[in-house]
């Protein structure tokens, strides 16, 4: 994928398909500043060890319409091509954790991309799912939580146009604040 955020979207959609009620995305600049870590954690139905052992094989898929699934294999290849690594762990009926690391200055690292759009659209599209985004860089931290925003909004739905525009803007500011100057694609 052209952007890391599209890999994140793909994994989040796996989570909703697994009936997750909470999806947590944590993006961290690791100490030493050379690696970007992305962790996507859900409380969905999870996988047993037999399925888990096969998910990085592109010929494994949860789909019934076709016999090839590439979401996880492409994310893994993207991280590994960028001097990083990839791991996935899961427990049946507990949830799944996907963890990818990218070397920040690798020439093959895709840009983070439209993360604000991905998170805002997931929050608006799945209002009953708690979408949690956390950005971390040293002692700087940004948190967005769709359940908290929903409580503040009261009767106004997350899918309201003005709300989505605000969500994108808010997350975009957070990205700049936390990763500006560290990720070359984000201006500080």
């Amino acid at each position: 994928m052209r952007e890391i955020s599209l890999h994140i979207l793909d994994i989040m959609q796996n989570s909703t398909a697994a009936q997750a009620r909470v999806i947590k995305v944590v993006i961290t600049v690791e100490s030493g500043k050379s690696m970007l870590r992305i962790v996507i954690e859900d409380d969905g139905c999870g996988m047993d060890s037999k399925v888990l052992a096969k998910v990085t094989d592109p010929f494994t898929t949860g789909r019934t319409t076709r016999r090839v699934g590439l979401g996880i294999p492409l994310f893994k290849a993207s991280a590994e091509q960028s001097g990083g690594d990839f791991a996935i762990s899961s427990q049946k009926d507990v949830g799944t954790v996907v963890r990818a690391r990218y070397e920040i200055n690798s020439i093959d690292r895709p840009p983070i991309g439209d993360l604000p759009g991905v998170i805002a659209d997931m929050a608006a599209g799945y209002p009953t799912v708690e979408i949690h985004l956390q950005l971390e860089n040293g002692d700087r931290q940004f948190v967005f939580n769709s359940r908290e925003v929903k409580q503040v909004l009261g009767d106004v739905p997350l899918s309201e146009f003005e709300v989505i525009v605000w969500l994108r803007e808010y997350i975009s500011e957070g990205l700049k604040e936390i990763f500006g100057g560290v990720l070359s694609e984000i201006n500080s």
Partner: protein
Amino acid sequence: MLAAEFAAKLGAKVLTGEPRDNTEIKGIYCGDLLSWVMSHAPKSSAWVTVHTHLNIVAVASISELSCIIIPEGIKVDEATINRAIDENTIIISSELTAYEICSIAHDCGI
């Protein structure tokens, strides 16, 4: 043109043995961003890519591409070749660059 015939025109090696059916090449597509290739490569294209990972077999299968051509003599992983044979996907290894491969394809009327 059949994939095996085109391989001969390129002076290239078919890594996956004798193909089980006559796969026709109807065009050429070049690209190394797998998700992009999946969403843009026309069906029955021969696909030129520098990737050698197992994922390319899945992309060729999902996008119904006629064969995969690895340029510049890049070594292809054994696991990829074996899976391609299982999936009846043809992998061709050429010493030429993607540009040279496309030029020859054009001259062949592909």
